[in-house]
């Protein structure tokens, strides 16, 4: 596969390139990156958050593994899971047993839910010789307690990666990587901000593909791609539709099929914020690039990381605040709760979030999907009715 070249600046080229990366279930871009230089390593990670800076500082490529989507036929994976367990672990197993991940030198399973947690154990049983780690994060957010614990967890992760590469991760290298990811997050936020202001220009399915590209490309290339997209999309002349503005919530792990993102938009809803691929913008401010980088990453996690169902909210009055704030900041008119079937975190969280929205008179609807959902008509009808309701009876 061709890697991104800087003179490809047309919007269609950028989107086509991202679509090619998205469709490629053999992760050819990551394979090519690894093959380009001897001694390179690739570390896979699942949703929701891992500190990719540490992987990058080890000279490795962080590879987001987000399941198999709607183009992967799951045959083997179903033999590992009961029918009432979500789809992402079974399609991830399918990717592994069909050798699509056989170039991956290690896998990280973040603290997302019991299913992802137990998948880390399945991985250890299936691939005892491959490095794998359940990556835990603190649910206590004080520096002396949760911070001390997390710094040590980060060090253990770094030691694990050093064991693969045989090279020490220096503070200098890690600070350089933090700098690159700071830049990447700034660009991600720029893309989200442009979509918020001109959602008819930065279409959600394009933004989605652009963010997905960040799962498989080196951070430097992904940043360049976003820079080019931002320039290209401003030059586009696309018609503004009389759509309502919504936030999509609950899709932080198993990803919706691309057609679902398109369907919401086609039904009359501009998506002005979402929680797809939170790893791209989990840290919500710059991480300092001097001093002790592990402590800086820990401090960022404790004090200015995002919010999602897998993270504890210590104070009752803060529950749902981030969503209400997002509605206001993004000038959204409603929220669509779109969660994968059998997703414990999202589905257990939903009643609390919808209650918080109801108290603020913010309209919301909810539905479930699977990464391989094929029938979009019911979702289109539901989202369309929601949009009509907001347009007809919402506040002017």
């Amino acid at each position, binding site marked *: 596969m061709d890697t991104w070249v800087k003179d490809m600046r047309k919007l269609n080229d950028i989107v086509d390139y991202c679509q090619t990366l998205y469709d490629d279930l053999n992760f050819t871009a990551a394979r090519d990156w690894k093959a380009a230089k001897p001694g390179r390593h690739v570390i896979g990670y699942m949703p929701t958050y891992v500190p990719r800076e540490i992987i990058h500082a080890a000279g490795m490529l962080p590879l987001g593994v987000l399941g198999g989507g709607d183009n992967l036929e799951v045959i083997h994976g179903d*033999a*590992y*899971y*009961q029918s*009432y*367990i979500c789809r992402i*672990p079974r399609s991830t197993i399918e990717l592994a047993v069909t050798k699509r991940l056989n170039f991956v030198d290690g896998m990280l*399973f973040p*603290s997302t*839910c*019991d*299913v992802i*947690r*137990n*998948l*880390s*154990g*399945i991985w*250890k*049983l*299936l691939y005892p010789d491959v490095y794998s*780690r*359940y990556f*835990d994060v*603190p*649910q*206590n957010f*004080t520096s*002396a*307690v*949760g911070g*001390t*614990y997390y710094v*040590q*967890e980060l060090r*253990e992760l770094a030691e694990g990666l050093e064991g693969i590469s045989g090279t020490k991760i220096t503070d200098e290298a890690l600070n350089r990587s933090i700098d690159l990811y700071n830049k990447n997050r700034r660009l991600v936020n720029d893309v989200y901000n442009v979509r918020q202001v001109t959602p008819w220009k930065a279409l959600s399915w394009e933004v989605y593909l652009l963010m997905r590209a960040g799962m498989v490309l080196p951070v430097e290339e992904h940043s360049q791609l976003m820079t080019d997209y931002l320039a290209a999309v401003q030059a586009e002349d696309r018609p503004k539709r009389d759509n309502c503005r919504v936030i999509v919530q609950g899709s932080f792990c198993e990803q919706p099929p691309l057609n679902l993102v398109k369907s919401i938009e086609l039904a009359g809803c501009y998506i002005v914020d979402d929680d797809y691929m939170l790893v791209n913008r989990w840290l919500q401010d710059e991480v300092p690039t001097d001093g002790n980088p592990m402590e800086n990453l820990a401090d960022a996690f404790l004090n200015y990381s995002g919010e999602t*169902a*897998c993270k*504890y*909210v*210590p104070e*009752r009055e803060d*529950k749902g605040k981030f969503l209400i704030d997002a509605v206001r900041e993004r000038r959204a008119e409603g929220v669509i709760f779109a969660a994968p*079937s*059998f*997703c*414990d*975190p999202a*589905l*257990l*969280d*939903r*009643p*609390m979030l*919808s*209650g918080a929205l109801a108290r603020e008179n913010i309209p919301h609807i909810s539905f*479930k999907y699977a990464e391989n959902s094929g029938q979009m008509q019911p979702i289109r009808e539901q989202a369309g009715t929601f949009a009509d309701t907001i347009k007809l009876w919402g506040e002017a």
Partner: protein
Amino acid sequence: MSNQTQITTPAASQEVIKDASMLKQKAMIADNYDKLTRAKELGLKVASTYVPGNLNELIMCFDMLNNLPEINAIQNGMRKKSGGMIMDAEKMGHSEDVCTYVKADIGNMAKGSIAPNGKPMPVPDLLLLSYTGCFTFLKWFELLRDQYGCETAMLHVPYTGDGIITDNMRDYVVKQLKEVLIPTLERVSGVKFDIDRLREYLRQSAKAEDDLVWVLKSAKNTPSPIDAYFGGVFYIGPIFTAFRGTPDAVEYYQLLRGEIEQRIAARMGPVTPDGDLGEEKYRLVVEGPPNWTSFREFWKMFYEEGAVVVASTYTKVGGVYDYDGFRHDPDNPLESLAEYCLGCYTNRNLPTRVDMIEQYLEDYQADGLLVNSIKSCNSFSAGQLMIMRTIEERTGKPAAFIETDLVDPRYFSPANVKNRLESYFQMIEQKRRAGGSARAA
């Protein structure tokens, strides 16, 4: 049996023999519910917490009562009340896909949080969120906090993803105990923490744990004097709930041990709801929680066929005492509480769970592994098919799989379960005749 009392159950008009330990436990539970429902009148504060990571000794140091929502859900499940509660919660917007303990609890709240003694439960003074081995716990107490508006204290217990307890994990939990939980408990209760009081409770815990382990290991006898799953859930009752660390629990396990000793001497099998088991035909290890809504019917499917569960993983969910010798340690009180939380069964990684099951199969001379997969419990269920497969490969013993739920009666299909079990017992017979390995049912 010297310590038996005959009582009559009015509903069935049938004489049931109750051992002294059973009566003791029943009285302990009734007394605890009485105290809980009279907490205000008695001037006692209430902490709600979970079975895995249950810090009963610590809670007692502050003269607080321990209320366990899972146990309340189980009580409502066994009384056939949970189904309606779950549907009420679903009508309130809770998904059909999530944990039925949570929905039974939320549905019960909507009906006034009625305890098994028919009196309303108090609003807890503290939600002590011991986040151990189950993601849902985190959300459950956020949901309860949303309803009750009471204070919540979080104890985050890291998952032992690499199968070991690291110093960092232990230190983190101890630090939370010192800097978050104990100050919060002091403030809520108005009682100052006394570590010597905690040591004394832990000393009592260790005594009870010794006897519990003796009871569990008695199943190595042939015939086994106990059923370590259906009977086992009664045996773990005191130690998993509000009694670990109390003289009552010590006495209960001494009584129980005495009764089991007599059964071994008399070469008797386990007690069942229909009396003593006759011939022991099959010895099983069971992975996963039981179904509570049809508990007796479920158990009957086993004992009618002469099947005895000689070891189970569910009886380790509130603490693993038999596998690697853990005991609460009065000399290292907070470290010991941390290790207890970190070592609960569902906080152990899948390879460790496989190792445990494999060892049970060998140590207890079991015929095979049965997995009861619970629809709404991903902590247990996700990965069970891999556990089965690995166990079969390692031991050559047959494994089988049934599906039920915790407290949602809609997911207990007796005909399907019975059919599966009968097939499984046939498979064991076939394997015995063939002398080789059998495939999963």
